Structure formats: C-alpha cells, structure tokens
C-alpha cells in the first residue's frame, strides 16, 4: 500500500468529549477507518491513514477524555499510547490535540497534560464559528506564540482548516520534540526527583524493565491517590513504594501543595496565563437556540413526554422494523437448507450443512437487522446531542437502582434484543455501572422470549377474561413474566452494586452539547462499525455453538434403531411414486410420509447424545415437573432460546415446520403439546404448573449464545459470561422449582 520510500509517521488524536474529535478524525482520514479493540481492554481503537505533505501518517483516535489522570481504562489507554507502551510501537511521532473554542479553559487542562509529554504537538481549535457567534474572540497567532506549537482554527464538520492542519502536523514532525511547559512549584518537583531516586534504587522495577519511568509518570504516581497508576505501572512494587508515596504526599500537603488539588490549581493557572490577552470572552452569555430547545426537552413533564415518545418510536422500529428482514433471512436460509437437502446425498455432511451451518449462520444474521436499526437511532440521537438529555431525564430513576441515566437506553433496547443492548453499554463511563448493566440486561424480556411465551401461554393458560374481555388471564400472565424479568434485573443490579461491584460512586457528570443536525456520514459509519463488530466477534462463536449442538443432536445417528421405520418409509415412497399426481390417495400418503419422517427424527433425537443427556439429567429436571423430553429441549435451546419451539415440535412428534410463522403450524404444535403424555402412561406432561414452571424458567434463564459471545467481547474476559450464565441458570432453576412445587401443591 505504502511506497517503500515514503516516510511514515504515527499521529495520536486527543481531546475532550464533545469537541468534534470523531468528526475531525473522519475529515482527516476519510472513509477508510479501521476499528478494533486495544489489546487487553475493551477500549475502541480507531485508526486511519492520511497524507501530510507527502508523508504517510497513521492517525490514532484516542478515547475522549477530560484528563490523563489514568484512573479509568480509557485514560490509561491514552497514557499508554502517548508513552509508546501500547503494542511496543514507541510513542507517536506527533500529537494532534483538539479543543472546543467555546470551552477553552477546561480544554486546556487536558492540553497541559499532553504538552507535558514533550511530543511534537499541533492544536486544532474547533467550532470557531460557534464561538464567534457567542461573542468569543480568540487570537490564533498570539496563542501559537504563547504555546510554541502550531495552532489551526478548524470547522471539522465542514472540513475547514483540514489542509492547514496536515501541513502543521508535517511541520511539527520535522521540528521534533517539544520543550514541556514549566508548571510545577519547586516543592513539588523536589518531591518528584526524590521519588525518581527511590524508584531507581529500590527493588521495584517497572515491568518494561529496560527504562526508568518518564518524569511525567512519576508525577502521576504522586498525584494519583487511587493507586491505579501504581498498580498498572509497578505491579511488583513492595510496600516500600506505597509508604514512600504516602510520606511524599504528606510532605507536599505541609509544603502547601496538597494532592490532588495541587494539579488542578497548577494547570488552570497555566491555562489562565496562556489565554490571558489572547482570549476575549463576553461578560454574559446570551440564551442560545440550544438553551431554548432545552427549556422543553429537559422539562420534567414535557421533556419526559418527548423522551417517552422517542423511545417508543425507537423500540417500535427495532421490534417491528426488524421483522421483515428477519423473515427474509428465515426464508433465505430455509431455501438454502432446502437446496442443500435436495442436492446432497443423505448423511452427516448434508445434515451438518443444512441444519448446523445454515441454521447457525441464519441465527447470526437474524440479529443483524435489530443491531443495525438500534444503532442507527442511537447514532442519530448521539450525533444530534439528544442522548445526553435522555441520560439526564432518566438519571433520577436509574440512580435508585444504583446506576446512572446512561444505563437506561442499553436496558430499554434489551427488551427487543440483549445483544445490541450490551453493545450499547459502552457509553457508560463508570466501569462498575457498565458491568452491572451488562450483567442484568439478559434478564429483560427480549423478542425471542416473547416467541416462547406466546406459544406456551396460548397452549396452556386458560383464556379466561374479566371486565367484558378487557382483562384476560393470558395477558396478565404475559405482563407478569415481563414484570418478573424487570424485578429480577432491579434486584440483581442492587445486589451486584452492593457485593462484587461495590465501590464509592463518583459524582455523575455529563456534558449537554449544543444541538446540531446529525451527519449522515457519522451515522452511517457507526452503524456499519457495530454491524461488523457483531459479525466479526460474536458471529464465529455463535456458529461454533450451533455446530456443537447440532452434533450432539445428530450423533451417534444409529440407523438400527430406526430400521423398521425406514422400511415403512421406503415402501410408502414406492407406493407414492406409483400414484398419479391427481390420485385422491396421494394427499393422505404424503401426510403419512411426513408423520413417518417426524417419527424417525424423534427416534434419532432420542438416541442422540443430546437425548441420552436429557434422560441422564431427568432426575434434575423432574422436581420442576418436566419429563426428559422437556429437559432435552431446554438443553437443545442453549444456543438460542427460541429454538425450543422447533425442538418441542420434533420431540413431541409434531411437524418440523411447526416452528414456522404460519398460525396453522403453531396451532398444530399447541395441540401436540396438549396431547403429550409421560412415557408409558396417559398422564399429561404439560399441566398448568409445568407450563408455568417452564415459562418462569425461560423468563430467567440465559439460553442465548449470542448474548454470551457479546458479553465476552464487551468485557474482554470469559469470567463475566460464565458468571452471568451461572447466576441466571441457578435463578431460573430455583424459580421454576418454586413455581412448580407451589403450583402442584395448589392444584393438589
């Protein structure tokens, strides 16, 4: 791609959230962006290429930050990239810092931390048009002189200033390292030197071993009272370092430099002195259009109403809008499976392709429409600035559960599907809140659960109604199942926040950016990004689970067990072939053939590993009122809970197409289930308590490989998916047990 003689460089892009950083990134590198995670953490790494004065530059988009304090994973990643501790690639050749012209003081706090790194730096002052409109006057040339770095006024959304920025970057790279500004009082610097000596002399070596810590990181060690930096940089440090740090901070407090307050004082003083004389702000800020809109949109009543309406539309779009696409995918995979069945000889390969692979790919693709639709709306709302208002409005409610307003939208979208909901949880800045949200989201009733509910409720809950049909028992049961999911999620969140995820909750801080028209390019980018991440990260795992479950349900595939049935089938097929197309006996023969084929499938399934396992675990599921066949269906629906519908159809001898969409097929499955009896008796399997226990089980269980795969991807560890699977399965089992036992006692 890159000619060997073209010099290449790496440039890191850094700035506060809501400064237009992503827009500038897109304006600089164009559409070819590469998105991945930083190794070892779930922080998005976006990179792209640009050409600056003939020099090929890789631009790395760092997370939006207020500080390089290295308390959170985002901050630590940014520090690591700037210090060249990521990928072992060395520090970047230049830093592009973007600041919001309307909020220079605060933006300069981060800038002072960036300049301290001593890397060649260029400053992009964004939204200069908006600032001018508010009466803010900035002397760009004067500022460049004060800072000693290139400063360019840009309007990222219109591409204004982008060319000058590239020239300034090339110039900065040519000039080489920067002299960091002198910020710190002598007493503080003394303490830093002292600490450097201690670290050099002591046994605590930084993990990179070869080099001593850069001075700016030694400062961070002193400033970071949380100990995060120490744990990350000096994991092997003995108690001596911690003691030394405490003693150092004590001395600093006595010298009038209390940690951490000294940092903000020093940096804001620097910002004031740099901006004095080059920045003129109006004495009074007039109400803007954004303020006028916010009068309505953050209003307790009107704002909440608008929010409810917006959420209803989003939810409806995800729930209903994804249906046609889903049917399309179902239809296409059905056709493909049919074609494979028709063109391959019967055997393991045909079954693997038609049922395992095509079924697996179908279920992966089936999630895609919901993900794309949800992220279309999220990107739209985020880009126009509404998302922060939504978080504000919902914060009061969510803070009662120990979470913040940021958790609301991921949770709400999980009523359609947990997969995009978990992916949307990335907006939650607080790590403990994010993990709590991810861990309880799978309890909320998704569209797949609704399919299972619909089938079982229609078949087993009496259609009793009161108040002239206004209130029906079936509807009440459905509402109760939704409520069960919500109540359990709330309880689980409260328990998690008080146990494994407890900790001091930092104050909830949120910027409400100015409203703007969303950019089609930004929205399209985010949607495509999410879709790709899902296919790439979760798709392979879902497919693998589908194939494993297929194998368990297929093998050992002993033909001897079905030999008599196969004989009958052969005879019937010969007889049918002899009949003319108009023969009255033909229809009957075809039905007979379908029945036989189902019977064969059921016998195979019974003898499969899955069937054997189902019978082995019968003692475990019997207290829930289930026979081995239900246990078997529940096991088979491990990859996706809605599979249970099709499996019930096969196991209880109904037509295989009973899982399809037609009302007739569903009715047939219901009657089959109603007629099912315990093997060797005429005692019905599905009594009311059994149906209820199965419903409660599905309300709480974690039968979804896609969700587990996405939790794995979003938490970057197997611990969380295993934990979520474990706690939900235990909850589901216990709740189903209680339901059945209570129900059996009640009905005698």
């Amino acid at each position, binding site marked *: 791609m890159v000619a060997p003689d073209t010099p290449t460089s790496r440039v890191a892009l850094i700035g506060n959230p809501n400064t237009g950083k992503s827009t500038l990134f897109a304006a600089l590198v164009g559409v070819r962006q590469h998105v991945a995670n930083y190794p070892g953490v779930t922080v998005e790494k976006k990179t792209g290429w640009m050409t600056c004065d003939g020099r090929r530059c890789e631009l790395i988009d760092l997370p939006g930050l207020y500080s390089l304090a290295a308390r959170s994973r985002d901050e630590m990643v940014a520090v690591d990239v700037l210090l060249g501790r990521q990928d072992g690639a060395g520090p970047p050749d230049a830093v592009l810092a973007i600041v919001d012209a309307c909020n220079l003081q605060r933006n300069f706090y981060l800038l002072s931390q960036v300049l301290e790194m001593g890397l060649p730096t260029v400053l992009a002052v964004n939204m200069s048009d908006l600032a001018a409109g508010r009466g803010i006057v900035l002397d760009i040339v004067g500022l460049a002189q004060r800072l000693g770095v290139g400063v360019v006024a840009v309007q990222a959304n219109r591409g204004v200033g982008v060319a000058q920025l590239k020239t300034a970057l090339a110039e900065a790279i040519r000039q080489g390292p920067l002299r960091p500004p002198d910020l710190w009082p002598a007493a503080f610097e003394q303490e830093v030197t002292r600490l450097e000596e201690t670290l050099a002399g002591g046994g605590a070596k930084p993990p990179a071993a070869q080099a001593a810590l850069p001075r700016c990181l030694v400062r961070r060690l002193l400033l970071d009272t949380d100990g995060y930096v120490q744990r990350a940089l000096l994991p092997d440090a003995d108690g001596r370092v911690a003691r030394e740090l405490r003693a150092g901070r004590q001395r600093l407090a006595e010298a009038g430099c209390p940690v951490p307050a000294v940092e*903000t004082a020093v940096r804001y003083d620097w910002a004031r002195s740099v901006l004095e004389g080059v920045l003129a702000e109006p004495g009074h800020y007039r109400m803007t259009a954004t303020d006028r809109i916010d009068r309505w949109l953050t209003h307790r009543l009107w704002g909440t109403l608008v929010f409810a309406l917006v959420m209803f539309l989003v939810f409806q779009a995800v729930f209903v809008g994804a249906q046609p696409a889903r049917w399309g995918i179902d239809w296409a995979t059905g056709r493909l499976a049919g074609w494979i069945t028709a063109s391959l000889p019967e055997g393991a390969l045909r079954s693997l392709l038609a049922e395992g692979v095509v079924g697996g790919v179908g279920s992966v693709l089936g999630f895609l429409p919901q993900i794309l639709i949800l992220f279309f709306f999220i990107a739209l709302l985020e880009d126009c600035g509404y998302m922060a208002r939504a978080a504000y409005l919902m914060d009061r409610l969510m803070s009662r559960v120990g979470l913040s307003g940021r958790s609301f939208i991921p949770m709400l979208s999980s009523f359609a599907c947990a997969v995009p909901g978990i992916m949307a949880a990335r907006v939650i800045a607080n790590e403990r809140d994010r993990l709590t949200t991810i861990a309880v989201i799978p309890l909320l009733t998704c569209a797949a659960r609704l399919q299972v509910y619909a089938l079982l409720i229609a078949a087993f809950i009496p259609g009793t109604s009161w108040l002239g049909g206004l209130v029906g028992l079936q509807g009440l049961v459905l509402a109760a199942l939704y409520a069960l999911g919500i109540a359990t999620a709330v309880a689980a969140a409260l328990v998690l926040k008080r146990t494994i995820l407890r900790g001091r909750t930092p104050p909830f*801080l949120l910027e409400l950016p100015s409203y703007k028209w969303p950019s089609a390019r930004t929205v399209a980018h985010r949607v495509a990004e999410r879709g790709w991440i899902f296919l790439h990260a979760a798709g392979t795992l879902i497919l693998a689970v589908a194939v494993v479950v297929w194998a368990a349900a297929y093998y050992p595939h002993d033909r001897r067990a079905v030999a008599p049935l196969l004989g009958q089938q052969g005879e019937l097929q010969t007889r049918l072939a002899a009949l003319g197309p108009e023969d009255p006996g033909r229809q009957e023969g075809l039905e007979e053939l379908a029945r036989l084929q189902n019977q064969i499938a059921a016998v195979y399934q019974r003898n499969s590993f899955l069937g054997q396992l189902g019978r082995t675990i019968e003692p475990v599921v019997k207290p829930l009122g289930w026979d081995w066949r239900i246990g078997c269906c529940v096991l088979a629906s491990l990859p996706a809970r809605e599979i249970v519908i099709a499996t019930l159809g096969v196991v209880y001898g109904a037509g295989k197409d009973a899982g399809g969409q037609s009302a007739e097929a569903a009715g047939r499955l219901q009657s089959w289930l109603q007629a099912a009896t315990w093997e060797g008796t005429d005692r019905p399997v599905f009594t009311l308590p059994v149906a209820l226990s199965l419903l409660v089980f599905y309300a709480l269980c974690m039968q979804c490989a896609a969700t587990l795969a996405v939790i794995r991807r979003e938490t970057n560890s197997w611990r969380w998916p295993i934990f979520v699977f474990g706690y939900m399965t235990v909850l589901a089992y216990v709740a189903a047990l209680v339901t059945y036992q209570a129900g059996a006692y009640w009905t005698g």
Partner: protein
Amino acid sequence: MHHPRSIPLEELQTGQRARISRIAGHPDHVHRLEEFGLRGGTRIEMFRPGNPCILRVGGNKVCLRADELLEVQVLLLPPGE
C-alpha cells in the same frame, strides 16, 4: 470558614447566577469535578435545579448529580452582574 452569603448549590433557583466558592468531599471526587471544569471561582447559572441539576457554565451546559458526601457551596451573584 463559610462566607456569610455562601449557600449550598441545591438552593440555587432557576436563572440565578453564582460563583462556586467551595467544593467539599472526597478529594478524588472533588478532583474529578475540577477536571470537568467545576471549581472554586467558576461562574455558573442554574438552568434546572434538582438532583441531578443542569448548570450553565460559560456558554455550555453540564449536568451534575452529587451525593450527600459531596457539598458544593456557591456565592450568589446579584442579577445584574
């Protein structure tokens, strides 16, 4: 310690302007607020009172939810200023 006209942030009414006089609480949380741009001396205007509240800071708006452990004291500014 307290300035005679110093009041807690929660008592600020819609449209009232003030200057932050003191933020008290856990040092790390105070630090976070300061990094976010809310610090002693910052001029604010109450846009939506309550908890969380919305403040105008300069030409921008921010939302803040503080718990009982974080106390923000402000000095009320006369309406004309």
